[in-house]
């Protein structure tokens, strides 16, 4: 998927997230993962770390070698997406406490991913 489509997808999911509050923490965390993954793929493509025809599904599923490269080139984006994905296990598929706090944390990570992607797209 190209930059324009990733941007359109991420922005539409973010608009949808605006309809939900942190009490809907499972849906918010999932939406942050979906939008964040589009920003993350845009960064991968721009950095030459993945072709537009080879979007990553989850940061966790990158090969060990690919993750090492991404960690060097896009450390903030990788850390942000990793954190969102970890919250899926604890608060979407799991029932660890403080779901709304986790949702707000996922949104902060999403903002970081958006900032990284838009910074690099306007540089």
């Amino acid at each position, binding site marked *: *998927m190209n930059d324009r*489509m990733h941007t359109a*997808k991420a922005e*539409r*999911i973010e*608009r*949808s*997230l605006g*309809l*939900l509050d942190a*009490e*809907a*923490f*499972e*849906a918010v965390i*999932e*939406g942050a993962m*979906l939008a964040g993954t589009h920003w993350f793929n845009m960064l991968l493509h721009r950095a030459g770390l993945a072709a537009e025809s080879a*979007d990553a*599904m*989850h940061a*966790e*599923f990158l090969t060990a070698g690919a993750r090492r490269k991404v960690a060097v080139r896009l450390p903030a984006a990788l850390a942000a997406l990793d954190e969102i*994905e970890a919250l*899926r*296990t*604890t608060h*979407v*598929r*799991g*029932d*660890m406490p403080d779901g709304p706090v986790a949702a707000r944390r996922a949104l902060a990570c999403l903002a970081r991913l958006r900032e990284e992607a838009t910074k690099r797209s306007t540089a």
Partner: protein
Amino acid sequence: MKIETHIDKFRRLDAAVARLRPDVDCELWIWTAMNACVNLLNAALHRARLTDETDSFHTQVEGLYARPDRARGTLTDAIHAPGDVMHAGQPALGQPLPDAIADASAALALIENLREPYVRGGEAPAAGATAEWEGAYRTCVDQLSHALGISESR
């Protein structure tokens, strides 16, 4: 997770589904509807004793669970018999499902199959297509509510 926890999660996710439009918010509608149904499916599978009501969470890797130490707030990876399923048929349970759960699983699979074209891919829903999606969601919720003996229709 426990049956009651799955039902609580379903109710929060179902309320979120109600705030989204399947055409305008198609990505988040699909994902949230799927997660709502998966929670009811897990509750129904536990209730039917087809899967275990374990205190563990499914990870992103099929068959790999995270077991919480609630006193310490930590997780440890674990592999054990299901347990929560991740999606309809994942993992396969190797035994026939009661009719209501089988029908619900087929409806859930329809929603899950929307992820590639509409969430990860660039397709936009054609006019009228979302009625089928909403019908599948309704079927899944109704069948699983029936299996669980709860009333969740709206």
